[in-house]
C-alpha cells in the first residue's frame, strides 16, 4: 500500500497509459470494455486518494526518473490539479459504466480493442496534462489527448459520415492551437532557460517586460483558447460533439474543455501571476467580452438547433463563457465560481449527453423531428433529461444554480455598473437556456409519437449510469460542502500564489 501512497501522482497516469497498449491487443467485445472500466476506476480511486492527501497535507511533488526539478520532470498535485484529476477520472469511469451496450451499436465489434485503447490514451493524456509541473510535458500529453480525441470523434463515422469531416476540422484547428502552445512554451524556455512551471514562475518577473514574453503570452492564451473552444474559436466543437459516438461526446463534454480551462488557470495564475495577467497585459479586457459574447450568442444559437446533441454542444460553449467570465473577474470569488462550475457543469452536461445517448440508442437519431413524443415512449430517460436540463438552467437545488449563485456574488462584489450588467447578462442567458431546454421538452411531451414508433425504454445498463449522473448532480446541488469546499481551496491556493 505504501507503494501506492508514495507514487500516487504517477500511478494515476501510468495505469491507463500502460493499459492502452494491452487493450489494443484484446479481441472480443466485452473484455476490452471491462478492462478499460476497471483501469479507469483504479485511476479514479488513486485520484481520490491524491485529493484527500493534498487537502490534508498540502501539495505533493513527485520526481520522475528520480531527477530533481528543474533538471528532471516534476509532477505536482496541488488543490487545483488534484480536483481536476478527480473530475476527469470520475466522469470517465461513470461514462464507461454506460459504454458497453451503447458503443456496441456504434463501433464494429472487431475494432473495440483499438477503440478502448484510444479512450484510455485520451484519459491518460488529460490526467497527465493536469498533474504535470513541467511546461513541455504539458505539450506532450496534449498531443496524446488530441490525437486520441480526433480518432475517437472520427469513430462516429459508422452512424454518420460527417463524423470524419468534423474530426478532420478539429484536427486542423486543434493542431494550430497545440502549435501555438508549443511556440509559447518555447519562447518562455528561451527567456528563462527552464521548463519547470514553478521555476519559470519564479524567474518570470525579471523577464516579464520583454517582447518574446509578450509574444509567448499571446501565443499561449490564443492556443489554449482554441483548445478550450472559447468564442470565437469554438467552430470545431459543435460539429465534433454532434457526430462523435454518444459515449465519446459525453466523456469529452465533461472533461476535454475543462482541462483547457485548467490550463488557462495554470498559465494565468501560476506562471504569469495574477498581477502580470490582469495588471500589466490586462487579460480581463480581452477575456470578459469574449466570455459574455459566448454565453449570450451561443445560448441564442442553441435555441435554433434541430439536433439535440448539437444544441447541447452550443450550450457547452455558452457555459465555457461563464467560466471565462469567472476567470476574467480576477477575484477569489470569481475564481471559486469558475472552478466550481468546472465540476458542476461536467457532471450535469455528462448526464444530459448520456440521456440523449439513450434516446439515440432507441430512436436511432438525435434530431428533434425523430424524438417527437419521446416522453411517452421513454419516460425514464426523458424525465432524466428534463431534470438535467433544470440543472443546466440553474434552478435552485441544482448545481447549475450553485455555480451561478457564486458567479453572481462575484460580479456583484465589484459593485460597479459592469458588475450589474454582467448579472443581467447572466440572467438573460439563463432565460435563453430555459427556451432551448423547453424546445426539447415540448417536442418530447407535447407532440404525438409517430404511430409506428414502439414504446421501449433504454436498457438498464444505460439507464442506471445516466441516473447516477442525474441524481449525483442533484446531490451536489443540495449538499454543496464537498464541491464548493474543494473549489474554494483551489481558488485560494491559486490566488495565494505558489
Amino acid at each position, binding site marked *: 500500500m505504501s507503494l501506492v501512497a508514495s507514487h500516487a501522482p504517477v500511478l494515476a497516469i501510468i495505469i491507463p497509459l500502460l493499459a492502452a497498449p494491452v487493450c489494443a491487443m484484446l479481441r472480443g467485445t466485452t473484455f476490452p470494455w471491462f478492462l478499460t472500466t476497471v483501469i479507469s476506476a483504479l485511476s479514479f480511486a488513486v485520484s481520490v486518494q491524491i485529493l484527500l492527501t493534498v487537502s490534508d497535507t498540502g501539495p505533493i511533488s513527485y520526481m520522475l526518473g528520480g531527477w530533481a526539478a528543474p533538471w528532471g520532470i516534476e509532477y505536482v498535485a496541488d488543490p487545483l490539479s488534484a480536483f481536476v484529476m478527480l473530475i476527469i477520472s470520475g466522469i470517465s469511469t461513470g461514462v464507461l459504466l454506460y459504454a458497453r451496450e451503447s458503443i456496441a451499436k456504434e463501433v464494429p465489434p472487431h475494432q473495440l480493442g483499438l*477503440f478502448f485503447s484510444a479512450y484510455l490514451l485520451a484519459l491518460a493524456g488529460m490526467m497527465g496534462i493536469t498533474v504535470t509541473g513541467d511546461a513541455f510535458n504539458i505539450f506532450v500529453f496534449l498531443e496524446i489527448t488530441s*490525437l486520441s480525441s480526433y480518432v475517437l470523434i472520427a469513430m462516429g463515422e459508422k452512424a454518420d459520415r460527417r463524423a470524419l469531416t468534423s474530426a478532420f476540422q478539429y484536427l486542423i484547428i486543434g493542431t494550430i492551437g497545440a502549435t501555438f502552445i508549443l511556440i509559447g512554451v518555447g519562447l518562455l524556455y528561451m527567456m*528563462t532557460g*527552464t521548463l519547470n512551471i514553478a521555476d519559470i514562475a519564479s524567474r518570470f518577473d525579471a523577464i516579464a517586460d520583454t517582447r518574446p514574453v509578450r509574444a509567448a503570452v499571446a501565443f499561449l492564451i490564443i492556443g489554449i483558447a482554441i483548445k478550450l473552444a472559447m468564442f470565437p474559436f469554438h467552430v470545431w466543437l459543435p460539429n465534433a460533439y454532434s457526430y462523435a459516438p454518444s459515449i465519446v461526446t459525453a466523456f469529452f463534454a465533461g472533461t476535454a474543455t475543462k482541462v483547457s480551462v485548467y490550463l488557462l488557470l495554470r498559465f494565468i495564475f501560476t506562471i504569469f501571476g495574477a498581477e502580470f495577467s490582469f495588471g500589466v497585459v490586462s487579460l480581463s479586457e480581452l477575456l470578459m467580452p469574449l466570455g459574455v459574447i459566448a454565453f449570450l450568442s451561443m445560448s441564442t444559437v442553441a435555441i435554433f438547433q434541430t439536433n439535440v446533441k448539437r444544441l447541447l454542444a452550443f450550450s457547452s460553449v455558452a457555459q465555457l463563457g461563464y467560466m471565462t467570465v469567472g476567470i476574467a473577474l480576477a477575484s477569489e470569488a470569481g475564481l471559486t465560481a469558475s472552478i466550481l462550475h468546472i465540476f458542476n457543469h461536467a457532471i450535469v452536461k455528462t448526464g444530459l449527453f448520456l440521456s440523449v445517448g439513450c434516446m439515440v440508442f432507441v430512436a436511432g437519431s438525435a434530431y428533434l423531428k425523430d424524438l417527437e413524443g419521446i416522453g411517452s415512449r421513454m419516460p425514464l430517460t426523458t424525465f432524466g433529461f428534463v431534470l438535467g436540463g433544470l440543472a443546466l438552467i440553474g434552478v435552485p437545488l441544482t448545481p447549475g444554480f450553485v455555480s451561478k449563485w457564486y458567479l453572481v456574488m462575484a460580479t456583484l462584489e465589484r459593485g460597479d455598473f459592469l458588475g450589474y450588467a454582467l448579472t443581467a447578462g447572466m440572467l438573460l442567458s439563463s432565460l435563453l437556456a430555459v427556451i432551448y431546454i423547453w424546445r426539447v421538452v415540448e417536442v418530447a411531451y407535447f407532440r404525438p409519437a409517430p404511430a409506428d414508433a414502439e414504446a421501449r425504454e433504454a436498457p438498464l445498463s444505460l439507464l442506471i449510469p445516466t441516473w447516477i449522473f442525474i441524481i449525483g448532480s442533484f446531490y451536489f446541488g443540495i449538499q454543496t460542502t464537498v464541491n464548493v469546499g474543494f473549489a474554494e481551496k483551489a481558488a485560494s491556493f491559486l490566488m495565494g500564489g505558489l
Partner: protein
Amino acid sequence: MEQFTDIFLMLLLVAGALSVLYVRNLFVATMLLGAVSFIMALIFVSLDAVDVAFTEAAVGAGISTVLYLGTLALVGSDEKPARRRALVPLLVSLLVGTALVYATFDMPAFGRADNPVQTHVAPRYIEESPKEIGVPNMVTSVLASYRGFDTFGEVTVIFTAGIGVLLILSQLRRRREDEADLTDGPDTDTNMDNDAAASASPAERVGSEHDLVPHVVAKLLIPFILLFALYVQFHGDFGPGGGFQAGVIFAAGFILYSLIFGLHFTRQIVSTRLVKFLLALGVVLYGGVGVVSLFLGGNFLDYNVLSADPVAGQHLGILLVELGVGITVTAAMIAIFYAFAGRAEGRGNDIN
C-alpha cells in the same frame, strides 16, 4: 563563411516553402517538401544540432515523403482548383508571422554563453551527465533519462497515431467491401488497365515486377539499410541517433521492399497482426522499465535502481527504453504504410 552558408540555406528554405505553395501538382509539391526538409536538416547541422538534423532527414524527408506518396496513390496528384481566395487565412498567417518577428527583437543573441538557456539548467547536463549517466552523447542522456518521461509520452504519441490510422482506415476499407457486395461483382476489374497485371491477383500487382534495375539495387541496398538502422539504434549512446531515427530507417527498409517486390511478400514476413503486436510491445517495454524501477524502490523511470552500480543501471535503462522507442516507431511506420498501401491495393491502383 558560416554566416554566408546560413543565409544561403535560409533563402533556399523560403524559396522551397513558397514553391510548395505555388505548385499545383501534388506529386511535385511532395518532392519539394522533401527537399525543404533536407534544407532544414542542413540548417540544424549548421546549428550543431546533429540529432535533430538526423531526425528531420529521416522523418521529414524520408518517411513522410513515402507516406505522402502513398496518399497520392489513393487520391491522385491533381489539386482541386480553389473556389475562392483565402483572404482570412492569409491575414492570420501574416499576423502570426508578425508576432514571431516581433518576438525576435529582444531575443537573447544566438549562441551567447550568458543566455538563460546556457546558464540555468543546461550546465548540470553538461557537467554532471558524464558522471551520473556515463553516456557520451548528452542529447541521449537528456532525452532518455533526465527527461525520459517526455520521451515515453512521445512514444505513446506514435502509438496513438498508429492505432488511429488502423482504426480509421480499416473501417473505411470494410465499408467499401460492403458497398462492393451490394453492387454486382468485384469492382477491381474496372481498374485493370495494365495488361501484365490483368492475370495477377490484386495483391501481387502492387510492386514493379518487370523492372530489373530497381530489383537489383533494392536487393543490394536493403541489407545495408537494416544494418544501418541497427547501428543507429544501438550507437545512439555514443553518436547522433537513437530509437526514433533507427525505427524510421528500419521501417524504410521494409517499405522499400514492398514498393519493389509487392506488399504481398512483405505481409508474409511481417503480418498485420505482428505489426499491431510490436506497436504495443514498444510502449509496454518502455513503460515496463519504469514499472520495474518502481518495484525496485525507485521512482518511475529511475534507472539507477536497475543495477547495483547506478551508472550501469542508467546504461541498461537507456538501452531498453531506446529499444522500446525503436520497436514502436518501426511498427507504427509499417502500420501506416500498410493501411495506405492496402487501400490502394483494394482499389487496384499501383502504389508506385
